[in-house]
């Protein structure tokens, strides 16, 4: 089609981190951009666990951690192996994580509204309350979007419509995702005063803590629990892999409630006021999901819609990858607009560009992490074993003491685990995670 028939240079569908960053950069470069969002307000449909590894945002919004409505700067990370009546924590605090700011907690209704406002600052037409129903193709070429009776046309369409990406599925780019690639996050935001958060979590100022739990938090369903401190609330909940949730016969909200009532968790939220109960689908096997094509002539898929989420066991990442993929896409689209070339070849520069960024590199590095996280021993046996080792150390029951090796060996023998499994899992862990 000829260029005079377009309404915008670029249509971006979805006002999350990916969509907003992509739209912002293109408009900043002088392009005509519309950002279409189905929520009545940008951010109103968006929910994430809440830790944003935000260093990448400095490239787009210098001073992001100071300017944007972020909650707390995460300087303390706790990995918690949770059992029914015990837990073993690795508690890591480091002042270096504060300068430069590495990770912040966010509440998306606030953050994404801010991102949309920054988009408007540089001339993006932000169009909330509009659900895009399908992409419009002219042969193989994507030429626009349809929302109800309305059609909008552009040189390039960016699908940033999230994990469910009806656009990618509807246009045949992505098949239905297997349940084992997906997980449901169920989260409560619980209000606590600043003073209580400082006392309870040993944080000062705007510093915060991020807990990752594995084990009894999910009642053996593959996945985990999390608790993140915000300024005046905590985000707490579980992430449950869908195939395993289905197989174990449990109810998602019950698993969430079991976690919040756990003796290691309940005191952390005691006396709090529920501000919001929400949920969101998330990606457990991003590397597998992002393996499909990410482009068509005139079309680029970014963020969760493309599958850019990583669960490395220790860090859970999505928003940083969303921003990284959006930056790569905006560079490629800007070049395509300059060259007036929206062919498959021009769009494929996106795939090549991603490979040179941390997004492509990390998706590759962690390609085997999802397979490792399928090991069922992760969700029960190893937590119990750790607690038994420490119980052997600290429970001075008047029997003669053994050295650590003897204590550990006894705990191991009592665990029913097989040495070759532990060896294999340990070796896989250090290579996959």
């Amino acid at each position, binding site marked *: 089609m000829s260029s005079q028939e377009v309404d915008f240079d670029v249509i971006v569908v979805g006002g999350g981190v990916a969509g907003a960053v992509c739209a912002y950069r293109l408009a900043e470069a002088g392009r005509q951009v519309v950002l279409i969002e*189905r*929520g*009545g*307000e940008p*951010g*109103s*449909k*968006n*929910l*994430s666990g809440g830790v944003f590894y935000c260093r990448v945002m400095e490239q787009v919004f210098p001073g992001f951690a100071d300017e944007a409505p972020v909650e707390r700067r995460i300087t303390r990370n706790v990995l918690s192996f949770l059992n029914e009546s015990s837990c073993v924590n690795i508690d890591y605090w480091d002042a270096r994580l504060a300068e430069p700011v590495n990770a912040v907690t966010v*509440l*998306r*209704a*606030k*953050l*994404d509204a801010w991102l949309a406002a920054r988009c408007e600052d540089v001339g993006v037409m932000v169009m*909330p*309350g*509009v*659900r895009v129903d399908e992409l419009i193709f002219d042969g193989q070429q994507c030429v626009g979007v349809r*929302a*109800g009776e309305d059609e909008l046309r552009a040189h390039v369409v960016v699908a940033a419509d999230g*994990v*469910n990406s*009806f656009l990618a599925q509807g246009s045949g780019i992505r098949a*239905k*995702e297997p*349940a084992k690639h*997906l997980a*449901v996050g*169920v989260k*409560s*935001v*619980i209000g606590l005063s600043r003073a209580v958060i400082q006392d309870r979590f040993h944080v000062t100022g705007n510093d915060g803590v991020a807990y990752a739990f594995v084990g009894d938090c999910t009642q053996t369903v593959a996945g985990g629990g999390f608790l993140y401190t915000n300024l005046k*609330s905590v*985000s707490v909940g579980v992430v449950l892999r*869908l195939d395993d*949730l*289905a197989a174990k*016969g449990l*109810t*998602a*909200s019950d698993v*969430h*409630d079991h976690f*919040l*009532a756990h003796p290691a968790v*309940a005191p952390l*939220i*005691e*006396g*709090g006021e*529920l*501000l*919001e*109960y*929400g*949920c*969101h*689908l998330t990606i457990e096997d991003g590397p597998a999901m992002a393996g499909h094509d990410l482009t068509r002539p005139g079309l680029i898929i970014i963020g969760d819609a493309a599958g850019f989420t990583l669960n490395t066991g220790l860090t859970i990442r999505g928003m940083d990858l969303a921003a990284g993929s959006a930056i790569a896409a905006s560079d490629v689209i800007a070049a395509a607009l300059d060259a007036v070339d929206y062919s498959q070849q021009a769009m494929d520069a996106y795939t090549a560009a991603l490979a040179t960024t941390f997004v492509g590199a990390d998706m590759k590095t962690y390609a085997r992490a999802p397979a490792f996280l399928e090991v069922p021993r992760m969700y029960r046996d190893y937590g119990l074993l750790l607690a038994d080792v420490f119980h052997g150390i600290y429970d001075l029951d008047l029997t003669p003491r053994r050295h650590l090796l003897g204590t550990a060996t006894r705990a191991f023998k009592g665990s029913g685990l097989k040495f070759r499994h532990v060896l294999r899992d340990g070796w896989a862990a250090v290579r996959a995670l």
Partner: protein
Amino acid sequence: MTDFGSIQDRLALNTYALDEGQNHIEVHQDVARATGTGKLLVRVCPAHVYTEEPDGTITAAYAACLECGTCLAVAAPGSLTWHYPRGGFGVAYREG
């Protein structure tokens, strides 16, 4: 331990713009029953949108939907039609 009430009580704290003109969820009863999807939907939906009635049919209280898409992801082919509510309708998170 702090009691946060039933799921219905908790959802009552959320803001929704109810689309009275359009239900965005449709359970196809025969397939849902034959495949076991019906009972699965009741369990996996964090908002308790789905209920199994005494006669085995699955009803969907679409007004409570948090729009995560979990139901669609686990539903057997042909058992469920689910899409996002029309633009501007449905849940509006204030925290997220």
